[in-house]
């Protein structure tokens, strides 16, 4: 199993996802062919992907350059991926 798939599985099954970094979340999104939108000076990053049916999926993350992401960001990301069929 590739690293991003294992990360995705870990995140999806983690009830308290407080130990994931921005880079790890990005690895998952890149693995699912998401692309980053250009960003300004702030820390918010927006990633955009497409389902097989062509539905646009937009995920927001925060890159503070250090530490781990707040758990709600991972929960939001997983919820988006799950509701759009990226996670069975």
């Amino acid at each position, binding site marked *: 199993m590739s690293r991003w798939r294992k990360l995705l599985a870990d995140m999806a099954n983690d009830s308290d996802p*407080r130990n994931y970094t921005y880079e790890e979340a990005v690895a998952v999104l890149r693995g699912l062919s998401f*692309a980053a*939108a*250009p*960003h*300004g000076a*702030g*820390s*918010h*990053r*927006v990633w*955009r992907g497409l389902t097989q049916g062509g539905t*646009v999926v*937009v*995920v*927001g993350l925060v890159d503070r350059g250090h530490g781990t992401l*707040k*758990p*709600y*960001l991972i929960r*939001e990301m997983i*919820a*988006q991926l799950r509701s759009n069929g990226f996670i069975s």
Partner: protein
Amino acid sequence: MAWTQEQKLARLLTLPWTIRLERTPEGDNLLRVAELPAAVGTGETDEEIARDFWEALEATLRAYLHFGDELPLPPGVTLPWEHPVEKVVIVHTKFRFVRHQARLIDQPDTAGSAGSERWEPKHFGEAVEV
């Protein structure tokens, strides 16, 4: 009018988005845009939450504009660059009154008595057709 990305962004930031305040199990307060799940702001103080929220909303809107994706809009909102106002054509037509009836300047007097009423500039009028 051709809208630039910055003009579109400025307009989008003023839309009546549905904003919800939520509290996470960890105790973080979140401000969320119901129509745009990626637009979520948080912080320790009200000022931080508001600043973070606007940054998140702007980043999300920029992403939609960048990729050219259809934006989930607040109910009842249409975007002026997607539904431009039909071009308005204003036609100024001069007419005069002949025997108490409006008559276009170039319209012939079929009764053959066009000269029976003295022409006065004050008889000019304008009809606006849209």
